[in-house]
C-alpha cells in the first residue's frame, strides 16, 4: 500500500511539474500581451524575403504610414522557410505563430488559396482592380474575391554588360527586336570572342522556359488553371528547345543554385542575365560595375503570331492571414501603403528600383529619370512600358509541382531525345501528378 501511494505521489508530482511549466509559459506570454496593451500598441508582423528588396520596401512603407494603434515588425526569412512554415501551420488548422501579413510569390498563391480556402482575408474592399496591372489579378483572385495586394512586377528584361557585348561586336541596337534564335547566335559569338558565357543557368530552374512560354500567352495549364497543356504547346516546345540549346552549345555557365547565379553576375564572369526586373537590386549591388550595364527587352519567339517581347518571372503580392488578433490593423496598414500610396511607389522606385504593378506609379517622377548605373537608360520607364504588354496567364495551383517533373523531361531533351515525343510523355506524367 505504501509503495503504491509513493508511486501515485511521484506520478502526481511529475504531472504537476509539467503543468506548472506550461502555466509558467502562458503566464509569461499574457504578461507581454498586457505590457503591449499598457503602451497602447499591438504588433503587426510581416514575413518577407530578400533584404535588398522586399524588406526595404516594408521599412519604407512604415515611414509613409504609421498608426498609433500598432507597430509593424518585419521578419526576414528565406522564401523556402516561409513556404514551409505556411504549409505546416495552415495544414494543422492553427494560425498560431503566423504573421498577420505575408509576402507570397505569384506562382504559389493559387495553391494556397485553394488548399486553404479560409486562411486568407478578403481584401476586395481595399484593392481597386483598375489601379493595378491586370495580369496580377489572374493569380490573386478566387471567385471575384481579391485576396492579395499586388506588389512588384516580374516583368522581364535581358540585363547585359555593354563592354562584353561591345567586344563581341554588338551594340545596343543589336539586341532590340530579335528572336531567340538570333539571340542564340549572339551568345555563340560572345562566347567565342570574349570567352564569357552569355548568362548563367541552373538546369533545375526552368524560369527561362516559363518566361518564353508566357511571352506568347501560354502556360503549363490552360486558362482554367487545371487542364494541362504541355503537349501541343508550340511556345513551350520552342522555349524548351532554346533552353536545351543554350546548355548543349555551352554558351551559358551552369550553376547549381540561386547564389551561383548572383555570383556569376557580380564577379563579372557572365555577360548578362535574362531575369525579372526585381533582379536589378542584385545587379546594382556590384557598385564597381556601374555604367557597364544596360537592359534590353527579351527576344521573342520566332514564327508565332502571338509572340511578344513582354513576359514575367516571379513577382509577388501581400496577403493577410485571417483570424489573427491583428488582422484589421494589418488590413489598415496595407490599405494606407501598398494598396494606395503612389508616394510610396515613387520612393521605392528610387530606393530599390521597384517596378510597381500600380498603374499610377508610372506617372511619378522617378520613372522618368535616367539611371546612372545602367549607362543613363530610363530603366523604370522602359520596364513599365513592357509591363503593360505582359500576357495574362493563370499560373494555376501546380506550377512548381509541374516544374519539378518537367525539369526531368527537359534533361531528356538536352540528352538529345525528340521534343514532341518527350512532351507527350511529360503531359501524361504531369496529369497523373496533379490528379490528386
Amino acid at each position, binding site marked *: 500500500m505504501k509503495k503504491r501511494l509513493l*508511486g501515485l505521489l511521484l506520478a502526481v508530482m511529475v504531472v504537476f511539474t509539467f503543468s506548472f511549466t506550461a502555466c509558467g509559459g502562458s503566464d509569461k506570454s499574457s504578461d507581454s500581451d498586457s505590457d503591449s496593451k499598457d503602451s497602447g500598441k499591438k504588433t503587426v508582423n510581416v514575413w518577407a524575403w530578400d533584404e535588398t528588396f522586399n524588406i526595404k520596401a516594408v521599412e519604407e512603407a512604415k515611414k509613409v504610414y504609421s498608426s498609433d494603434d500598432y507597430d509593424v515588425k518585419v521578419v526576414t526569412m528565406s522564401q523556402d522557410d516561409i513556404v514551409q512554415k505556411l504549409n505546416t501551420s495552415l495544414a494543422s488548422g492553427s494560425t498560431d505563430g503566423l504573421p498577420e501579413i505575408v509576402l507570397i510569390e505569384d506562382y504559389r498563391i493559387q495553391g494556397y488559396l485553394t488548399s486553404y480556402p479560409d486562411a486568407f482575408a478578403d481584401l476586395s474592399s481595399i484593392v481597386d482592380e483598375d489601379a493595378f496591372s491586370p495580369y496580377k489579378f489572374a493569380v490573386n483572385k478566387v471567385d471575384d474575391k481579391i485576396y492579395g495586394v499586388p506588389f512588384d512586377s516580374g516583368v522581364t528584361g535581358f540585363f547585359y554588360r555593354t563592354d562584353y557585348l561591345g567586344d563581341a561586336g554588338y551594340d545596343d541596337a543589336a539586341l532590340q527586336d530579335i528572336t531567340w534564335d538570333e539571340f542564340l547566335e549572339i551568345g555563340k559569338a560572345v562566347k567565342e570572342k570574349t570567352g564569357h558565357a552569355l548568362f548563367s543557368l541552373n538546369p533545375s530552374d526552368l524560369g527561362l522556359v516559363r518566361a518564353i512560354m508566357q511571352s506568347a500567352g501560354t502556360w503549363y495549364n490552360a486558362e482554367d488553371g487545371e487542364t494541362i497543356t504541355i503537349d501541343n504547346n508550340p511556345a513551350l516546345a520552342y522555349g524548351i528547345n532554346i533552353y536545351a540549346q543554350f546548355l548543349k552549345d555551352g554558351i551559358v555557365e551552369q550553376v547549381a543554385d540561386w547564389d551561383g547565379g548572383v555570383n556569376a553576375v557580380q564577379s563579372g564572369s557572365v555577360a548578362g542575365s535574362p531575369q525579372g526586373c526585381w533582379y536589378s537590386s542584385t545587379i546594382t549591388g556590384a557598385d564597381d560595375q556601374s555604367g557597364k550595364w544596360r537592359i534590353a527587352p527579351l527576344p521573342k519567339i520566332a514564327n508565332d503570331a502571338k509572340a511578344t517581347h513582354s513576359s514575367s518571372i516571379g513577382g509577388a503580392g501581400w496577403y493577410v492571414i485571417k483570424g489573427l488578433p491583428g488582422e484589421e490593423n494589418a488590413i489598415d496598414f496595407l490599405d494606407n501603403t501598398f494598396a494606395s500610396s503612389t508616394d510610396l511607389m515613387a520612393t521605392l522606385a528610387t530606393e530599390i528600383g521597384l517596378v510597381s504593378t500600380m498603374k499610377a506609379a508610372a506617372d511619378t517622377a522617378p520613372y522618368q529619370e535616367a539611371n546612372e548605373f545602367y549607362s543613363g537608360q530610363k530603366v523604370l520607364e522602359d520596364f513599365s512600358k513592357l509591363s503593360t504588354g505582359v500576357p495574362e496567364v493563370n499560373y494555376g*495551383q501546380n506550377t512548381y509541382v509541374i516544374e519539378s517533373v518537367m*525539369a526531368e523531361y527537359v534533361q531528356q531533351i538536352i540528352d538529345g531525345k525528340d521534343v514532341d515525343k518527350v512532351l507527350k510523355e511529360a503531359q501524361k506524367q504531369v496529369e497523373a501528378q496533379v490528379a490528386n
Partner: protein
Amino acid sequence: MRKTKKRVWIGTGNDFITLPLILITILVFVPMIMALITAFQSGPPLNMKFNGFGNFARMLTDSTFKKAFGNTFLYLIVQVPIMLFLALVFSSMLNDTKLKFRGFFRTALFLPCITSLVSYSLIMKTLFADAGLINQILGTQIHWLTDPVFAKILIIIAITWRWTGYNMIFYIAGMQNISPDIYEAADIDGATKTQQLFKITIPNLKPIILFTTITSTIGTLQLFDEVKNITNGGPANSTITLSHYIYNLSFNFGKPNFGYAAAVSFVIVICIVVLSLIQNKVVGNE
C-alpha cells in the same frame, strides 16, 4: 483476483515505466497510426478524403518516385559496401599497435562525424563547384553539381567521407575484443596481413559488421541533409532521394500532398524492415 493483478502492475517498479509508456504512445504510436490512415487519403490538407490504395497505385506510374527510389538504392548498393570496406581497412590499420600517432589518425578519421551535416554539405558544395578547389587540383572542367552522373558521384563521395569514420570506431572497438593470441599464432604460421584481415578479423567482427550494415542501410534510406544541401535534388531530380521527395511533396510545393507523402514514407518503412530481415538471415541469426 483483480486486486492481485493490480498489485502486480503497480508496486513492482512498473510505475516508473508507466509515464514513458504513456508518452511514447501519444508521441510515437498514435502519430504512426495516424500517418498510416493519412497514407490512404488524398486532397487538400484540411479536407482529405479516403481514396483506398490510390496513393500506392500512383507510385507505380510516378516517374519522380521511381527516380527517387532508384537513386536511394543506388546510393545504398554502391556507397554502403565502399564505406564499410574502407572502414574495415582503416580500422585494421589503426589497430596495429606498432603504428605511431595512432591517436592522431583515429581522431582525424573520426572528425568528419562530429561536423554538422549542413555545414559539411555546404563545404563540399564549395569544393566541388565549377571553379572550386577540386576542379583546380584535377585540372578538369567537371560540372560536379549540374551533371546528372557526376552529381550522384559527388553525393556518394560526400556521404562516404562523412560516415566512414563513424563505422570505423565500431570496428576498432570490436577488434580490441579479438584476442591477440590468434594473430600471433597466424604470424607464426606465416599468414600475411591481408590473410589475417579476411580470415581472422572479418569472421570475428561478424556481429558488428551486421550491426553497421543495418544502421548504414537505414541511414542511407533516410538520406536527406546531404542531398538537400549539396544539390537540392538536382539537376532535375537526378540526385533526389525518397526522403527528399517526401519533403518536396509535403512542404516545397504551394499545394501540399500529405496523403501521398505519407504513403511514400511507408514504402521506406517497408524497405527498411525487409532489408534488415534479409541482412539478418544472410549474416547469421544470433
